[in-house]
């Protein structure tokens, strides 16, 4: 049994079919990359996995370790180990980043039957992670994502991920908006989390990211379908050729 099993997944948004039959199995420990043109349905897939409202599954199924993921509320999915690094992270005015992180961490700990984390222990933990991700510690006092630059928001997403240590993390264009140095730092952060129990779905437009986070599989999503799957060399080919040769498939 794979960690994540997506079978014949059809999804509509406001009556319009966006995903048209996705099959994707992700085993524990694997890193899968998804590439595809704008509007092909990549973020839609990430939202369906994480349970956002407004995405209607008309056919097919998704399971997490054999359990019906679609039957779970978004917060239950998160506590079961699903994490989404948002393409466009939300601002939460007035809520200090540290407060947000602590609330999220404690929600997870509670689900695991653990006590709330001690305040000092939490600070040390977060500060350690921030250092690894080269994030200035001032940031934890600021309201989450409010006034953060594009790159800072993306780093904050990765900070949350490394704190929550999810079983399955979806990174939706976490590389866009990052400068070259940040790309390296963030990739290191992701790589540090790689392990036999943890899986990733990395959505990106750029092969460059995949030089740092080397995927086990690359899938090409066009027009709501996976039109080709392969190893990391597929990403290199796409970088050189673009999506032109899939245009026919898309029309079909």
């Amino acid at each position, binding site marked *: 049994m794979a960690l994540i099993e997506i079978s014949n997944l059809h999804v509509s948004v406001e009556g319009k079919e966006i995903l048209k039959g996705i099959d994707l199995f992700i085993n524990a420990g694997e890193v899968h990359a998804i590439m595809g043109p704008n509007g092909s349905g990549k973020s839609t897939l990430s939202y369906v996995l*994480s*349970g*956002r*409202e407004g995405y209607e599954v008309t056919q097919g199924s998704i399971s997490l370790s054999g359990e019906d993921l679609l039957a779970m*509320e*978004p*917060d239950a999915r*998160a*506590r079961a180990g699903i*994490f*989404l690094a*948002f393409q466009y*992270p*939300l601002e*939460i*005015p*007035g*809520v200090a980043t540290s*407060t*947000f992180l602590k*609330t*999220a961490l404690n*929600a*997870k700990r509670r*689900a695991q039957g653990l006590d709330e984390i001690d305040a000092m222990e939490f600070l040390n933990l977060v500060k350690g992670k921030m250092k690894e991700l080269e994030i200035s510690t001032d940031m934890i006092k600021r*309201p989450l994502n409010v006034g953060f630059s594009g790159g800072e928001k993306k780093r904050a997403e990765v900070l*949350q991920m490394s704190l*929550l240590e999810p079983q399955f993390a979806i990174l939706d264009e976490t590389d866009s908006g990052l400068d070259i140095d940040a790309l390296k730092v963030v990739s290191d952060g992701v790589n540090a989390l790689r392990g036999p129990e943890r899986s990733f779905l990395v959505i990106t437009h750029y092969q460059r990211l995949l030089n740092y986070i080397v995927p086990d599989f690359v899938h090409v999503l066009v027009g709501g379908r996976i039109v080709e799957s392969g190893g990391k060399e597929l990403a290199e080919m796409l970088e050189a050729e673009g999506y032109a040769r899939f245009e026919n498939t898309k029309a079909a």
Partner: protein
Amino acid sequence: MAATQQTIAAVQETEKYKYGWQTEIESDLAPKGLSEDIVRFISAKKEDPEWMLEWRLKAYKMWLTQADQEPSWAKLDFPKIDYQDAYYYAAPKLGDAPESLDEVDPKLRETYDKLGIPLLEQEMLAGVAVDAVFDSVSVATTYKKKLNEMGVIFCSISEAIKEHPDLVKKYMGTVVPYSDNFFATLNSAVFTDGSFVYIPKGLRCPMELSTYFRINEKNTGQFERTLIIADEGSHVSYLEGCTAPQRDENQLHAAVVELIALDDAEIKYSTVQNWYPGDENGKGGIYNFVTKRAACRGKNSKVTWTQVETGSAITWKYPSCILQGDNSVGEFYSVAITNNHQQADTGTKMIHLGKNTRSKIIAKGISAGQSNSTYRGLVRIQPKADGARNFTQCDSLLIGNKCGAHTVPYIESRNPTALTEHEATTSKISDDQMFYCQQRGMNPEEAVSLIVNGFCKEVLQTLPMEFAVEAQKLVGISLEGSVG
């Protein structure tokens, strides 16, 4: 009359039982209803001096002439209150007044413990002195001795009337006269307890002063009256917390609070109001009609009101500042949360009289369920208030689409050199924010609580530390059930 005398006799009888309260605490009740006899009964119970009784009677007579004229301008909807169907005096039967904490009824102590009120001396480290009011009688005043040594007077108003009549006579009713409004007049006639604070010249009171009011007796109105005087150059922070047990009946609460700040003095008055709001169908709950007003009488004086209003079925409350002294400052920070069928009509009045007076109003209203919340505020700049400044910001947050938020600002400027600024926003908690929080593992209620706390932050951070934490939790609790 006979009934009243019987009650008095019965009360005197039961008061002999010093330890008659091992089980439930019984109450010492005046008969139901309001009459001159009841006013006299209360006055006698409080051992009022003659002048106090006269004041009460004047108020009562005035109230009689307007007994049909409850204020009706607020955006509140409630059935007519039958003032003859309530008790105006209820005291726990305690025997003689306790000399020290050890003598306080353990049952009461237990209740306060449940409320988390630090009554015990060992909690002195927390820096909180509590004047606890159980129904109408002040049962314990902590740290009084210590404060006394510094010249601070912190006691129940009844005690102040007896022990410090000159101060009380000089200041009581000078900010909120008994004729002020319907509910203040009623309070003036029947008030039973409340706190009195006097801070001597030049002293920064080294601890937060705090009163917990608790309505415990069925069908009792609570009419407390608080008077705080900060003498020249002094400084005090006072916290009032309220909570009431669940009852199906509506209970009336009509308090009066008067603050007086003399030259260079500063008073910070914080309220966390969590009276029983009624059930999810709107049954029961406290009717909270409160008159709170501060006089910034001296130059450079300052008063800050902070209120977190989460409870009560109905809240009618406008803590105000009369800025008489030149350069005096008034501030009002408010969070009002309504859920289910609660109604709140709350705000402030800033009356600028002196030169270069400044006021700041930050009001955050959160409505959920089928509730209604109104901000009503008045900024008045009088002709002599050269250079007066006001800044007002009112933000409303709606949860769901059956609730309402209303903003009614009045600005009256009679001085061309004055500047007023008003900003207002109305927003909803976005689905995207909710999803984002839930994606991080928070359940919907936690998510709402977090987002709302963020929305209120500017106000909550003006509360003393230990109460800010409590208020944050309350915000979450009071919005329970507001998201599906």
